[in-house]
Structures are given as structure tokens and as C-alpha cells.
């Protein structure tokens, strides 16, 4: 193993976790900005150390496991949530050189698999909590994520067909001329929606649904176990944003600036867009979410696969 690869392996998890932690503050400041207020601005310059203060607080909170919960699964669920997100980052190519396994030949499938496993975190958390709101949240999570996962994969097929590879390096390389967001705009839209649903972010945060379910699947969680769900959610935002960057926005490609900066800029822009979605849109009703998924987005992604395939075959035959 080469020395830089080892360094990336050691550095990646803390960097991702740090980013996710800082993101909690960024999100609150941005929400404040769009809601004509300030958000946390007292701890450190601009409130920058608010995340540290929150983390310290949550570390000292009592870590309580309800007596009626299924203990082993209850403890396991946040670990799964955290682990799958962190593992997914292994195949994200930040630049040509930076990234643990960016050259993995089934990188995209690996990420889809990890996202599929991530569902277990939410479902098991809801189930093991053994309380009605948590169960309802877990049930919603299962239905929502399983159905959105179906066409998340399908929407990515267009990209895979155009690049001719599951390797994320190759996919970025294939976007040398034109970013995939233009030929694959349909797939991009579907993947965005599926990505929001997958990270259960607003407006698709029905598993959490704090208005009607308390806090949904993590109602019974406290202390650092809740913190792990929280951080995993923000790491998930970074993950989906960097995935969108890699698959549709040309990855690290861009003029003048160094590649890593381009990657960070694009990913940051996507993260800000995610937060804007939260600031702007209300949560849809549960049945409408499912109806949108199965009746609109699934046919759209199938059509996208068909159209992309047809055009590619016509082009090849010419």
C-alpha cells in the first residue's frame, strides 16, 4: 500500500465527520439567513464553534436505553447508519490521487449497496425502539427508501451507459467534454429526488416527521447514539452531494483552480442547495410521496434508460 493511500484512509473518516459536524452549524446559519434571522452566532467567530459546544453537550447527556427496547439491535442501529455512510466515502474520488478506492471497478454499485444497507439503520432503530412513533417512522423509512432505491439505481444507469463503466474515475473521465447533467438531465432530476429521500432530508423526511411522529425512528434515542444518527444524516448529505458532483457535475474537472478545489466547490454548492430545499419546501403527504415515486419517477427513470440506450446505439451504428 502506498503512503498517500494510507494517509487518506487515516484522514478520511475524521475529515468527513468534521465536515458533517460543521455542517450542522452551516445549515442552521443558512436556514437563519433564508428565514431573515441569524441562527447560532455567539460561540466563536460567527458562531463557528457552535458544533463543538453541541457535541460537548451531547457527550455529557445521559445515554439512556429504554427498558422496553431490544437492547442489542437498539445499540447496533446507529452504528450501521454511521458505518455505511463512512464506508461509502471510500469510493468517492475527490481528485485523481485523493480518495481511498476511487478506482474500484464497481464503485457505483458499492455506493448503492451501502445506501441500501443504510436503510437498515433507520428501520432497525424504529423497530428496536419498541414504541409506536419510532415504529411508524421505521415503517415509513422502509417503504420510502425501498421504493426510492429502486429508481435511484435506474436513474444512474444512464450515466453508467454513457461512461461505459461503474468506475467513478472513468465516469469523471467520460465527462471531459460535457458534464452529464446536460445529456442526463432527466436522470439528474430523478437522482436528486431519490438522493433526498435516501438521506431522509426535508422535504422527504417522513421517517422523522417531527410534527406527527415526535422524532420518528430516533424518538427513543438520546446522547451520543442520537448524535450518531444526526452526524450520519449530515455525512449522508455530503455523500449524496459529492456523488452528484462526481456523476453529473464533472467531478474534479474545471478550469484554472486545482481539481480538489473544484470538487469542494461543486460539492459545497450541492450541500447549500440541499439546505435551501429544507428552508423552502414543506413535507409532502405520505401517500403522495409514494405515488410520486412509483407513478412518476419510476417511469421517468425507465424512459431515461431507454432513451439513453437508443441514442447510444444509434450513435454507435452511424
Amino acid at each position, binding site marked *: 500500500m502506498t503512503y498517500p493511500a494510507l494517509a487518506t484512509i487515516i484522514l478520511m473518516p475524521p475529515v468527513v465527520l468534521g465536515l458533517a459536524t460543521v455542517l450542522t452549524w452551516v445549515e442552521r446559519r443558512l436556514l437563519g*439567513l*433564508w*428565514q*431573515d*434571522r*441569524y441562527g447560532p452566532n455567539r460561540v466563536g467567530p460567527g458562531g463557528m464553534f457552535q458544533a463543538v459546544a453541541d457535541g460537548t453537550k451531547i457527550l455529557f447527556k445521559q445515554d439512556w436505553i429504554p427498558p422496553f427496547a431490544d437492547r442489542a439491535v437498539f445499540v447496533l442501529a446507529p452504528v450501521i447508519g454511521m458505518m455505511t455512510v463512512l464506508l461509502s466515502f471510500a469510493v468517492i474520488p475527490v481528485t485523481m490521487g485523493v480518495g481511498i478506492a476511487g478506482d474500484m471497478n464497481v464503485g457505483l454499485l458499492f455506493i448503492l449497496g451501502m445506501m441500501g444497507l443504510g436503510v437498515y439503520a433507520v428501520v432497525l432503530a424504529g423497530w428496536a425502539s419498541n414504541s409506536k412513533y419510532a415504529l411508524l417512522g421505521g415503517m415509513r423509512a422502509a417503504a420510502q427508501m425501498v421504493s426510492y432505491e429502486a429508481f435511484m439505481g435506474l436513474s444512474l444507469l444512464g450515466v453508467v451507459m454513457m461512461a461505459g463503466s461503474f468506475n467513478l474515475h472513468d465516469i469523471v473521465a467520460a465527462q471531459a467534454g460535457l458534464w452529464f447533467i446536460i445529456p442526463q438531465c432527466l436522470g439528474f432530476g430523478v437522482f436528486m429526488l431519490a438522493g433526498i429521500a435516501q438521506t431522509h432530508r426535508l422535504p422527504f423526511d417522513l421517517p422523522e416527521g417531527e410534527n406527527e411522529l415526535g422524532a420518528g425512528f430516533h424518538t427513543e434515542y438520546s446522547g451520543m447514539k442520537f448524535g450518531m444518527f444526526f452526524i450520519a444524516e449530515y455525512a449522508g448529505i455530503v455523500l449524496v452531494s459529492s456523488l452528484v458532483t462526481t456523476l453529473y457535475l464533472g467531478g474534479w474537472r474545471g478550469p484554472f483552480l486545482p481539481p480538489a478545489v473544484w470538487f469542494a466547490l461543486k460539492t459545497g454548492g450541492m450541500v447549500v442547495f440541499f439546505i*435551501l430545499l429544507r*428552508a423552502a419546501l414543506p413535507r409532502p403527504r405520505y401517500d403522495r410521496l409514494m405515488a410520486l415515486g412509483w407513478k412518476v419517477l419510476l417511469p421517468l427513470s425507465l424512459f431515461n434508460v431507454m432513451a439513453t440506450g437508443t441514442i447510444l446505439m444509434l450513435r454507435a451504428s452511424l
Partner: protein
Amino acid sequence: MLDTLRTLFLTALHAFHRRATVQYPEQKPYLPPRYRGRIILSRDPDGAERCVACNLCAVACPVDCISLQKTEADGRWYPEYFRINFSRCIFCGFCEEACPTYAIQLTPDFEMGEYARPNLVYEKEDLLISGSGKYPGYSFYHVAGIPVPGKARGTSERERPPVDLHSLLP
């Protein structure tokens, strides 16, 4: 679809709006003169206490946070002690409405936080101010028809001398 994008755009535009927050400890909010904050006891224009210890404020108080004891001196009533427990007070202003002499008044001040609960019990010397508060120039004994030392019956403002019932003259 389009209205969703419009919503996103309009929300993003809010980045350029003025923020509604008042950064409190540095920036003070405007409090109107009738704001119901810290309770005070005011004085007459001539410097005497307005409170006549009638107990109406204590009766009106829904949380029973006012406690006082009547005493007499110089032919009029005074509170011997006057105590408001601000850890109970809900700042409803009923005491101010009940007061017949404008003695008890609520002021636009709410910065009375304490670390120890007993410090929130204000005694009469904490409550009394030197001025006449919201009603300058008002003096209960100059208006009321009660005789006090130095003011005979029928000599108050806007008061006619008492009618002599035994006289037939108009």
C-alpha cells in the same frame, strides 16, 4: 414543478432581506411606555408614598405574589411592609388596574434575572421610586374626599364644601 422552483427562488432571495432579529444584549428592543415589566411603587408629587395599604392589589393578584401589612401614621394609612415575590409574579398588570391611588405601576424593564430565588423577593424599599411614575401631578389625597391632617373635609380639588343638612338656606 414550476411553483416548487419558484418557491426555491423566492426563499433564496430572502438572503438579501433585512434580518428581523434584535441582537439583544448589545441591541435593546423598543419597549412601549405601557410595557408590563418590573413593578414599582410610586410617590406623590410632594414626595409622600401613594400606597394606602388598601390590599386591593393583593386581592387582584391571580398568583398571590403581593403581601403587605397596613399601618397608620399621621392620620393616614401606609403599608408597614410591602413585598412582591417576583418569582411568582406573572406580570399581568391586574394590581396596577386595581390600585385606586396609582401607587403600584408596571414599568418597561424586564432585566431582573437572579441566580438565587430569594433575591427575587422585593421589599418596599426595593419597590419604592422617588418619582410619580406614569401619572405626574396626581396626588390621591388632593382628589379624594377624605380629611387628612392639613386638609379639611370639602377642600379637595373639584370638591364642594359639605352641605349643612340642618340649615334651610339654599
